[in-house]
């Protein structure tokens, strides 16, 4: 077939149309268009502990997953509820300290402290953020940024919970495999759970609040209640990640309120693709190992790190997921002229 007789035709949403809804059941090929990316994602995540060469990199996986849970919660709050939260550090710190306190003061084992920290921490964070729920956009962001600084200073000033030394001698997970599979499992559960939740009709209320809160109020729905529910979901996820972090390092301290936990999830969301939920996880899978690889360069790594970010914002502002999805759904074929 020579090029004079035919030309290449590109259909932009070819795969999407063929594998959307009921159409996916037409053939195994359509079905695999739909399921294969998800399968690769799950299988890839689950095989990570085997692929990593040594203890050090296995630990990096756990940290990636902790950041991934944080990034998921940021993406959910920012792009499905419309609350831009810089409270990642607040959630991690609160969850971390609750798990630490439960374990070292009451000697509750890790498999109980983690869920307990998620629930208690979620309630605590929601109560603390309740007064600022009417705030929007950058104003909400500023308040959430203030809380981790506030908490760290309170612990330092009153010298409670070990003061500046933190709580030491906390139990670790029973084995490194248990640790990694627990956090990986959590990432996958939260990812697919949230993706399902935001597309249900009840989940749409959150999107509606983001689109247009006045109309939701006029519909007789109490938006503060729904915003509080969303903050609870996001902060419980963050607190669970914090509790895991405490048990991984066998220590909880003031540095868990460090702003890295607020900033890196946002960077990961920018790189991965805002509002896609998978994107932020991919972003973390890239950013955290890169930052580990660049550790040899000392403070220079911030420069590399920043250049990656700037590059993405300039050239692929939609993020990897958006770009990747568009390419994946494109459909190319030769047609006769």
């Amino acid at each position, binding site marked *: 077939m020579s090029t004079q007789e035919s030309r290449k035709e590109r259909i932009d949403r070819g795969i999407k149309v063929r594998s959307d809804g009921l159409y996916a059941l037409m053939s195994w090929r359509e079905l695999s268009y739909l399921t294969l990316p998800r399968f690769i994602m799950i299988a890839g995540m689950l095989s990570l502990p085997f692929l990593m060469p040594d203890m050090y990199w296995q630990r990096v996986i756990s940290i990636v997953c902790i950041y991934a849970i944080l990034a998921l919660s940021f993406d959910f709050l920012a792009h499905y509820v419309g609350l831009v939260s810089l409270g990642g550090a607040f959630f991690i710190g609160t969850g971390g300290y609750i798990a630490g306190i439960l374990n070292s003061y009451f000697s509750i084992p890790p498999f109980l402290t983690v869920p307990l920290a998620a629930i208690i921490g979620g309630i605590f964070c929601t109560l603390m953020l309740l007064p600022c729920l009417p705030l929007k956009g950058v104003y909400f962001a500023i308040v959430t940024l203030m809380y981790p600084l506030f908490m760290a200073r309170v612990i330092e000033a009153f010298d409670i919970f070990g003061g500046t030394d933190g709580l030491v001698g906390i139990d670790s997970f029973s084995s490194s495999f248990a640790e990694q599979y627990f956090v990986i499992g959590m990432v996958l559960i939260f990812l697919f759970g949230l993706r399902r939740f935001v597309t249900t009709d009840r989940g749409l209320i959150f999107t509606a609040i983001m689109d247009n809160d006045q109309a939701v109020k*006029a519909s*007789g729905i109490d938006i503060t209640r729904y915003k509080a529910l969303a903050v609870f979901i996001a902060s419980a996820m963050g607190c669970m990640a914090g509790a895991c972090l405490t048990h991984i390092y066998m220590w909880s301290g003031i540095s868990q309120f460090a702003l890295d936990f607020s900033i890196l999830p946002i960077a990961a969301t920018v790189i991965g693709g805002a509002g896609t939920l998978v994107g932020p996880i991919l972003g973390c899978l890239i950013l955290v190992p890169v930052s580990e690889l660049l550790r040899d360069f000392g403070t220079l790594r911030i420069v590399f790190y920043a250049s990656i970010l700037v590059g993405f914002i300039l050239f692929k502002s939609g993020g990897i997921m958006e770009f990747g999805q568009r390419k994946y759904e494109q459909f190319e074929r030769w047609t006769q002229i």
Partner: protein
Amino acid sequence: MTDPILKTNGLSKRFGGVKALKDVSFDVFPGDVLGIIGPNGSGKTTIVNCITGFIKPTSGKVFFRGKDITGRPPHKIADMGVTRTFQVMRPYYSLPAYKNLVIPLFSPRAKRTGGWRGGGNLGNRQTIAIDILEDIGFERDSYIPFKKTSTLPTGYLKRLELARCLALKPEIIICDEVFSGLSMSEIASMVPLIERLQDEGITIVMIEHRLRELFQVANRVMVLNFGEKLIEGTPLDVMANKKVKEAYFGSEEVEEVMTYA
């Protein structure tokens, strides 16, 4: 005489030095279609905002069925059945049209009443939403209910505003300029809709600039000027009034309106 369903008593609102509303009192009786007219900036939308709780009046009271609802939050007031549309339409642009109605069907009031024409228990929300849209003039077979809201023309968006109120099975609908921005034919199809809602027992308060159509449907009209109530009465009374002419119409248009009324 029956008790008023909605009553305001000396409603005033100041925004800093601006007195947007000065001591406005009026009654709305069950089954009424009350028109509120007035030049730009006369406080029409402020009245709606005060009644539905979106802003708190500086002084004065709002009563619904004899109960004081002044300063209650908007969702509580909507929950009682006092619903409103917005002058600048506020649909959820990122959702398909029918999902716009699924949201209000999640409200406690819809759960109690079963939604528009619902008999007390709520069925499948998506079915009810599509039924409401069909009832209000979305062609069911045309896929328009399933289109993304941001692609719909203004006429449909205005209907969607009304549909959002209907999803709550309202007692009162306060329409903030539902005719504005519509073409003549769209308005012509909107008028019977308003009349039909009135027949179904919904009390309607209409804020409007399109006097010709308003005078067709309204049985009483209130005129506002600079936040003050100028006059209230039947459309014919209002049109004949000299103060209203001076404040609002300009003599030429009155004659034109008179011939249509």
